[in-house]
């Protein structure tokens, strides 16, 4: 079996597994977010935080919950890092410097997991487990809660109420993420991922030097890193590290974990709005983009010209031999089309076009299928925009799922699609124009520019993956990427919840033969086209000067 066939078979196996697994999970999540009953442990939590899980919230109240909870998370995580030097169980590491502590706190609360530090050399057990791992769960649950609130906006009529944030948050953790993580962690351990609290081991190298290796609760962190589309690795090498991702099977399983919840949420969405087909139309768009990107990536990586790649059977630089081009391409596309940012290979070492594909994946807004929750709401916002333009062409005021897209709705959607391009372009431009930030580049020319463009694209879209090559641990990059992550996460949430509120208040318009059918393949195609054109037009000049210039050279 050649490496190309292996790559294709892996992709097919992945699609098959997701096709089976998303159905029970999608159905389960409908029950999670609609059931009136609370588990005992949930009642304890509500009592502990003093929240009433049964009050219905209008969008401002829901938003206040999201922001208050996340702000508290940033503060807690920042203090935890600043105090690491005096906390027990820290493997003797010092407190983290202010700029880096802010960056890391912002990064994990924003579900980005951009890391400007070396995990195994900076964070001890307490910060890793009580700080970072906790945020891996709750930041994912926040994203799912906001998505569910938007779905309720579509599903409900003549009410401003979007559900209860605390209940959605807690249930996302207790009923979805934790049970899945437990099962996933056991499978990972079975694959050979480490799970212990051992200290640092000094290991002799073949060439004579000494290397420091440490263990830790890796499998438990690894599973939620993928499942919650977080991406923050226990080790700096992330999923390329053999302790995090030892075998081709664990590699495929991790990709499966990344895609599982975002894919299943489309079914949850369909069921909650009363038409599974509406959910599948959205999923079809996501799937088409994902498959297209995988195909392009494999093609450019396998077919890259030059003597070294031809000898190796493809562009193997920066890729692990145990994953090969197929397993690496699948991982790279999946991690950048979701808001994960975990890596099992070095994106900087991909071919010019390959690097461009990872960047474009993030620039799409991470909606194919995107981060947990954020992928669904991002795609639904794009659907609102696509419906608005295409809906006019059938001669009616545009409507999606029976809800009219009027001035208020389009204002919120238009601002949403403005935010990340503004953050990416402005911060990249400032970094290029100021005298010192370009010093962080490892490479000259177009590749150097790509490093900075990639960093802000990753931060503003809450991906967290790094192109590698850029020294991001400077005050400038720690501060600006930190801001980009927070603004790129929470400004869109404000708009999504406002939109949800305005949709929920509407009386739905019954569908007739004159209504644009949004559950048809035609619409899925239209949506994919709208996503590609709007994003493509926004970033084309920047991409031309980075990956395109490199790829066409």
């Amino acid at each position: 079996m050649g490496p190309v066939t292996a790559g294709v078979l892996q992709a097919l196996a992945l699609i098959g597994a997701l096709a089976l697994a998303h159905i029970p999970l999608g159905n389960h999540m409908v029950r999670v977010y609609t059931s009136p009953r609370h588990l005992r442990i949930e009642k304890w939590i509500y009592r502990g935080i003093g929240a009433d899980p049964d009050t219905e919230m209008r969008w401002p109240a829901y938003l206040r919950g999201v922001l208050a909870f996340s702000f508290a998370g940033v503060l807690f995580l920042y203090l935890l890092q600043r105090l690491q030097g005096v906390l027990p169980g820290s493997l003797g590491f010092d407190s983290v410097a202010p700029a880096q502590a802010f960056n890391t706190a912002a990064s994990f609360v924003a579900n980005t997991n951009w890391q400007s530090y070396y995990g195994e050399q900076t964070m001890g057990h307490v910060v890793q487990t009580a700080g970072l791992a906790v945020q891996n769960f709750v930041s994912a649950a926040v994203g799912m809660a906001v998505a569910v609130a938007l779905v309720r906006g579509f599903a409900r009529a003549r009410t401003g109420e979007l559900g209860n944030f605390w209940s959605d948050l807690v249930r996302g953790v207790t009923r979805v993420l934790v049970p899945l993580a437990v099962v996933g962690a056991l499978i990972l351990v079975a694959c050979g991922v480490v799970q212990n609290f051992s200290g640092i081991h000094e290991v002799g190298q073949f060439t004579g030097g000494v290397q420091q290796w440490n263990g830790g609760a890796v499998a438990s962190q690894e599973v939620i890193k993928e499942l919650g589309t977080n991406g923050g690795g226990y080790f700096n090498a992330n999923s390329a590290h053999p302790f995090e991702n030892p075998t081709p099977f664990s590699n495929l399983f991790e990709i499966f974990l990344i895609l599982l919840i975002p894919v299943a949420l489309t079914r949850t969405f369909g069921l909650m709005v009363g038409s599974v087909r509406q959910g599948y139309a959205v999923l079809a768009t996501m799937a088409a983009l994902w498959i297209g990107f995988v195909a392009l990536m494999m093609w450019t990586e396998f077919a890259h010209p030059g003597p070294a790649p031809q000898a190796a059977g493809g562009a193997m630089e920066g890729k692990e031999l145990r994953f090969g081009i197929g397993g690496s391409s699948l991982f790279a596309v999946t991690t950048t089309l979701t808001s994960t940012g975990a890596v099992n290979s070095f994106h900087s070492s991909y071919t010019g076009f390959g690097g461009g594909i990872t960047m474009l994946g993030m620039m799409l807004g991470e909606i194919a299928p995107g981060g947990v929750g954020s992928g669904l709401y991002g795609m639904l916002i794009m659907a609102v925009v696509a419906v608005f333009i295409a809906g006019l062409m059938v001669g009616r005021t545009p409507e999606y799922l029976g809800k009219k897209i009027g001035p208020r709705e389009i204002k919120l959607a238009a601002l949403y699609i403005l935010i990340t391009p503004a953050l990416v372009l402005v911060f990249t431009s400032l970094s290029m124009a100021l005298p010192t930030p370009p010093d962080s580049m490892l490479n000259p020319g177009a590749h150097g520019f790509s490093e900075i463009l990639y960093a802000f694209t990753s931060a503003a879209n809450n991906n967290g993956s790094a192109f590698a090559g850029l020294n991001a641990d400077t005050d400038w990059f720690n501060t600006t990427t930190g801001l980009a992550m927070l603004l790129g996460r929470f400004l869109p949430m404000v708009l999504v919840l406002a939109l949800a509120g305005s949709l929920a208040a509407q009386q739905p318009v019954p569908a007739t033969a004159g209504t644009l059918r949004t559950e048809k393949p035609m619409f899925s195609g239209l949506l994919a086209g709208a996503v590609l054109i709007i994003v493509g037009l926004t970033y084309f000049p920047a991409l031309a000067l980075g990956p395109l210039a490199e790829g066409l050279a």
Partner: protein
Amino acid sequence: MTIRVQEHEDAMSAPTTPTASTPSGAGVLKPAQLLASLPEAFRKLDPRVMVTSPVMFVVWIGSVLTTVFSFKDPGDWFGWTISAWLWLTVLFANLAEAVAEGRGKAQADTLRKAKTDTVARRVDGGTVPGTALRVGDLVVCEAGDVIPGDGDVVEGVASVDESAITGESAPVIRESGGDRSAVTGGTKVLSDRIVVRITTEPGKTFIDRMISLVEGAARQKTPNEIALNILLASLTVVFLLACATLPSFADYAGARLTLVVLVALLVCLIPTTIGALLSAIGIAGMDRLVQRNVLAMSGRAVEAAGDVSTLLLDKTGTITLGNRQAAAFVPVRGTTEAEVADAAQLSSLADETPEGRSVVVLAKERYGLRERHRGELVGAEWISFTAQTRMSGVDVDGRRIRKGAAGSVTAWVRERGGEVAEDTERLADGIAEAGGTPLLVAVEDADGARILGVVHLKDVVKHGMRERFEELRRMGIKTVMITGDNPLTAKAIADEAGVDDFLAEATPEDKMALIKREQAGGKLVAMTGDGTNDAPALAQADVGVAMNTGTSAAKEAGNMVDLDSNPTKLIEIVEIGKQLLITRGALTTFSIANDVAKYFAIIPALFAAVHPGLDKLNIMRLSSPDSAILSAVIFNALIIMVLVPLALRGVRYRPMSADRMLRRNLAVYGLGGLVAPFVGIKLIDLLLSLIPGIG
């Protein structure tokens, strides 16, 4: 340049479309019109006017910047040429709007002539100028007077020439009380004397509103237009960011971007095509209604018309011809059809109602019975139809023949000691069940009084209505027939006409309840009406079209007035509403799709010098960087003018399902929008490369 823009007839060619007010020259753009609108287009360059269209305002600022820049470097022909084409882009946009507005101006001038200074004679004797009238004033108008203001006739009856507003020269009758009491200021009394109670302040009369409407002065942006403007503004900001951040990226790559080039790139990318034509599309949509003699009081109503999912249509005049007609003669046992026909014809000669005339016509057409004149039958005594007796007939040659309503004729036969044939009732009921109205024909002669047979009167559904309703169904619009008939009759006609539902024995309250019920389900409802008792329902409906012949209460309540008073027009109004939205969507899609080709022209031109690989993106093989940028800018400007006729006329609209319409419009405007600029820019580049010094 060969941009294929669909040239189409107006889609309103269904069989029932009235031809009385066919617009003249609709959709044709004459050079003279462009020339006449040019001064207005220049006037609109005022920044205070430009700012209302965010996209074009950005182009305006860009033009100013490049012009200033060119003054600093007067020898740079490229800067000057770009500046000139940017100004042209702005000017073309203004021209499109000015042409759209100009079409209304001519009509407004005609209306102004009708609004001459009038003198009002108060009923108490004094005279005041028409402009000093107040609501509630009573004024007298006699033959030859121009009515000084809008109002209701409270005394008298007069024939009035309303041609000033309707264009229809035949005079109409206006009388106190009832549904024909409204008079419009500016119309002229031809005969008799009426007393009018003024109902509208001067300056707010119907004719004043008409003037401001057709001129576009009262034009407010509609919700959908506002929404589209927001989306376009947001896209403009995105491209502004993309262009503003580009110099820092380019500097690093070693390419120097001048301000002129950056502005050119920006103008090419922002959605100028739709931005330039957006207001022209809206004005032209209103104008299309005006050309069909419909006045929409707000653009919002026109947009709502596109969304309507339930149409309430009055049976009489809309679905059926105004009157019932005789369709068959049915004999009772023992008589023949010819006998019934003969008796029916004789007895109807004295019946001047349309029903009576139709009996005579049927007898002639079906049984070849020559129409006999009343003078031919010597000694005949004619009994005319009256509402009291509900019978007509004739006494001649010892025979007394009667024809009329079942109850009246039966009573007449019984009075004379005659027998009512036992199958009479069965036959009459059969006709009623089929939706018809039975008339009995009876005779009294030597054999005594007896029923001869039954005339079957039925409503005649207008030709082509069934197909029309079928079309509406395909568009997802439900039709409900409103009638005062009993449910049985209503059902029969509803089935024949193919409407989806009917409301029988309808009272104004029933109509109102029906509208509210539909609206509670999220549907938008359109209806027509003319009487005062229609006013609440007209106000409740999302699209309420009042007939111009109706009362002023009805005209106030509706959001549209049909000057032709043709209820069928509701269907056309819906189509115009849809066409308006489709045109906006199509040009937006076209505009955005255009950008792809422009990037392929401009990006290689800007950066191929520093990254030679990028020249592979120059798939159009444009001759030089300057020519590439210039070609894109010129294409961007010219496409506006190319699309002006389409914006004014509207995209072709044919009733079809949303799916088919989307597929068709996506293919034409989406795919067309992708391909057209590649061809256009290449052609412009070929022409430019012939100029020495560019190629």
